């Protein structure tokens, strides 16, 4: 298990409960965290804090998760994005994965261990790519 404590994760979700849960979870595991409540704020914070990975909700008012993922990937193609999709959106997410927009995808209702496992997965992948 590879846990790089200096990694900063950007959490993007319009639901304050989900933002609060993910923030508590990730800080308890030693990650640094930034939060955004919509797509526009996510793009702004992404340029300010340059996160190691983004945890992105798919269903948000205004810019949805896929639109945000496309924007972020256009300025940072190697950025790992973990999409948290709504239960009824499985097909759209599959298409986004085929386009190479997402590193990992979780479906709500997720389990907190799945979040940690997905981060370990993408950081282990990053480490093996640099070796």
């Amino acid at each position: 298990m590879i846990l790089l404590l200096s990694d900063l994760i950007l959490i993007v979700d319009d639901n304050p409960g989900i933002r609060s849960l993910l923030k508590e979870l990730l800080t308890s595991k030693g990650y640094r965290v930034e939060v955004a409540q919509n797509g526009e704020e996510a793009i702004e914070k992404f340029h300010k804090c340059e996160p190691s990975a983004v945890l992105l909700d798919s269903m948000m008012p205004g810019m949805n998760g896929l639109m945000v993922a496309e924007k972020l990937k256009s300025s940072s193609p190697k950025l790992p994005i973990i999409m948290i999709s709504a239960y009824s959106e499985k097909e759209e997410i599959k298409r986004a994965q085929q386009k190479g927009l997402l590193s990992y995808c979780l479906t709500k209702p997720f389990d907190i261990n799945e979040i940690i496992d997905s981060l370990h997965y993408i950081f282990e992948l990053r480490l093996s790519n640099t070796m």
Partner: protein
Amino acid sequence: MEKKRDSEFVLKKEFLNLCEQLIDQITVAKGFLDLNDERDNYFTKATRREILRMEDLLKEFIKKILESERV
């Protein structure tokens, strides 16, 4: 007839949206329960079991909505 189908479609979309909001709240409740220090406590386990049951029922409800026409 067309008008009726359109209003049914809108209604199904609204149901779906409400279900997704409920799924979010279940995710948060279950997550905080798992984060607490007393996860092996009898009542914590029982609460988690009931939340999972709610989760299953909601998933079933969403599945039924998605199976119905034009959603």
